[in-house]
């Protein structure tokens, strides 16, 4: 599986997917015109990754802001990670938020409550 790197724009986040390192990283602002199309490569990569996942997978999410359709795509990504975790691979999700961004912290807590995967909500320093 090839590594995927997508640079950030003022509307879309930076994405890094690395099978060898067992790494999934999404950070920035997510307000794409079509969220489904934008996150499609991530979902496809996860479909492929779930067939032979690493022993441990580290997932980092560091959002500045995202729209409602992105929040659905993020949830779908979490569901996929949940499935990988249920199939026996260790998955850890780290949700970073700006120290003074209470809303992003609460959003992380909401996802944490619904997803059955070790989920850390961490303030950015």
């Amino acid at each position: 599986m090839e590594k995927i790197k997508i640079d950030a724009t003022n509307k879309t986040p930076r994405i890094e997917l690395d099978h060898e390192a067992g790494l999934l990283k999404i950070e920035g602002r997510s307000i794409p015109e079509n969220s489904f199309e934008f996150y499609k490569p991530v979902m496809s990569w996860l479909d492929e990754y779930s067939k032979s996942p690493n022993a441990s997978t580290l997932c980092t999410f560091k959002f500045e802001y995202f729209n409602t359709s992105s929040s659905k795509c993020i949830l779908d990504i979490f569901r996929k990670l949940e499935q990988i975790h249920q199939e026996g691979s260790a998955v850890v999700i780290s949700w970073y938020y700006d120290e003074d961004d209470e809303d992003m912290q609460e959003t992380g807590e909401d996802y944490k409550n619904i997803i059955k995967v070790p989920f850390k909500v961490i303030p950015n320093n």
Partner: protein
Amino acid sequence: MEETEKKTVFEHESQILVRSREILNNESTVDYKQPYIDLTNSYESLLNDIKLLTSVSDRLQKKHNQTNERLREINEEFSQQAEEIKAIHEALQTKNAEITARIEELKATKNDLTLARIRKRATSIIVVVAIILLVLTELFDRFVMEGSSWASKILLIILIKPLDNFIMERLKRKEFAQVNISST
């Protein structure tokens, strides 16, 4: 969200609905129990997702609204500051016009004073020159003409005014030339 966006983002949920409808429309299906359990589970999952997404969306909208509110406040502050700057600018323009008028007045006063000083000097020079010329004409009349002549006195009186003008002009030129040199 756009209509197309809804279709794509909820692709998985749409597929569940299509599958359920197919089962309902299939007359040969006798046992609805398992499909009903699957549909209930999917509905539960969807309901949880909707609750979460609504909560997240509300929070994002709140954040958006707060940002808009802050932008409106900043805009109002800028408008107020722009009004204040405009008022200060207008006051400065008025003050500037007053200062310019005052400078013009001072220049005119200085010119008047300079002219008065020149007039005084010119008058002094004319008096001295007139006395000298009077003495000279008197001496000329007495020793050369051997008698008093009114003609030389009248000539002297006629000459005083052009002489005065000439001296005034020379003094003015000299004075204003000095002013120009010192101002540059």
